[in-house]
């Protein structure tokens, strides 16, 4: 893997989100993303699923760099709180290393809106397990520079997230997608950001348009077969919105692959 990864297989999710990254200090990654039309939700701001994907992208890469040279990382859980629902852009995603243990890495990630006086948009923590890939960990030139912008995007607008994922509702509480090639990560499984976005869509569907403001997401197993379905159950309602339990299953493999606890605020 080289320092400008514009064409590698499994990079479509990163390109769709349009996140570019720079390693500004050792193990301190800074990402930037435009508030692109295709990332916006019904409320006008960037969908929480897209914000979660950005957190996962930048935090995961930061965690991976911290794991070198022993191995690389796979996300195991992501927690995030979204505090600003309207965004001007560009967004800046800052990842800092909180802990590098024997078999896991913890990164803190915050998203700020540079077009709105650096207003905090989201704050999260990503935990990743350290693994040794079959062909060894990837090699990077340091300090790392990664530009994932979609080449040629200026001539062809990208579809909105729901359409891009091919998401369809199932009953009153579930959303399902097929495991399309462009939704896989470089290891051939469903991208973690897509799982997060699916959780966001299921919470929105189960609450008639609620906006995800808080997520705890545990990645339990890879999605390899599909279709992949997220099913939400409302546990209760509070002054900040509905609290839901969202379970993600690889229907084709007949197994649970992720569990999320979500708070969805009313958007009215």
């Amino acid at each position, binding site marked *: 893997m080289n320092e400008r990864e514009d064409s590698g297989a499994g990079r479509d999710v990163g390109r769709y989100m349009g996140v570019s990254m720079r390693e500004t200090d050792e193990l301190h990654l800074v990402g930037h993303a435009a508030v692109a039309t295709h990332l916006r939700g019904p409320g006008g701001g960037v969908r929480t699923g897209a914000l979660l994907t950005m957190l996962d992208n930048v935090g995961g890469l930061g965690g991976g760099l911290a794991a070198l040279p022993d191995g690389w990382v796979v996300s*195991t*859980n992501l*927690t995030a*709180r979204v*505090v*600003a629902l309207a965004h001007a852009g560009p967004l800046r995603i800052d990842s800092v290393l*909180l*802990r590098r*243990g*024997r*078999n*896991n890495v*913890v990164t*803190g990630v915050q998203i700020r809106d540079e077009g709105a006086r650096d207003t*905090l948009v989201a*704050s*999260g*923590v990503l*935990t990743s*397990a*350290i*693994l040794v890939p079959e062909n060894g960990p990837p090699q990077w030139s340091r300090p790392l520079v990664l530009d994932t912008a979609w080449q040629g995007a200026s001539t062809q607008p990208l579809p909105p997230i729901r359409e891009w994922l091919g998401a369809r509702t199932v009953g009153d509480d579930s959303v399902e997608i097929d495991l399309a090639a462009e939704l896989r990560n470089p290891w051939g499984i469903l991208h973690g950001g897509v799982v997060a976005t699916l959780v966001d869509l299921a919470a929105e569907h189960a609450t008639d348009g609620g906006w995800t403001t*808080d997520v*705890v997401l*545990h990645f*339990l*197993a890879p999605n390899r077969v599909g279709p992949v379905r997220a099913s939400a159950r409302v*546990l*209760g*309602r*509070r*002054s*900040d919105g509905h*609290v839901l*339990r969202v379970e993600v299953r690889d229907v084709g493999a007949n197994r*649970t692959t992720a*569990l999320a*606890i979500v*708070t969805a605020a009313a958007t009215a």
Partner: protein
Amino acid sequence: MAAVYPPDRHLLRDLRFTFDHDADGRRSRAWMPVVTELCTDLGHARAGALATLVDVIGGGLAASAAAPGWIATADLTLHLVGAARPGSTVEARAEVLRAGRTTVVIEVALVDEDDHDVGIATMSFAVLPRRDTNPEVALIRDSPPTMAAPDSRLARPLLDELGVDFVDRDRGIIDVPVIDWSLNSMGAIQGGVVATVAEVAAEQALRAATGEPLVVTDLSVTYLGFGRVGPVRSDVDVLGTGAGHGSARVELVDAGAENRRMTVVHAVATRGLG
């Protein structure tokens, strides 16, 4: 630290938990009687008290799932949706979601006596090689159903028992000593107590920021290091506020160990629970 764990006077005895473990090592249950000493001024059990229940039952179950290896708690999350009031008993139903080579993930449902949802929690653990000093899993699973002695109980409100010192309420700065009463078996401040410290710090800062009597109903606790020396000190960053709610990021450090970072917590406070 006392030679026998837990000592006669200890949090895990005084909260009067009882336990039941399934033989297959995939599920456990625990019960906690709710007393006024565990409650907020809005009259329901503190998130930190419930996090302590979750920590104890989740940790025991994860140790079984990771055997013959051992575990280190990586994170604990708790979302409350129902009030647990004095005189009631909260049941924690823990289940293994994943038991892999490097991680164990546990889900814990909290319900009241009528089977209504009180909340939901998750925990994840890093799997480590076993050391000679780690407890035997069989001892955990075959232990008596409670650690409480006949006279075990909270003599004072939980925060008084913990020795919470409110250094600056509006900024959420509190100091909490590391004492035998609240240690874990490794000689560091117990994970549920860590959650309680963050809860109290966030509650103070968010009440000041909103002017409303909010209570913490969500905690996402990421454990980074032990608190062994003390005092444990909080630093709160209010992330955002709205009508009837607010959120904060809390960092805890071991002030007596050169301010070593122990924990990062995201907390949400709301108007309370019905």
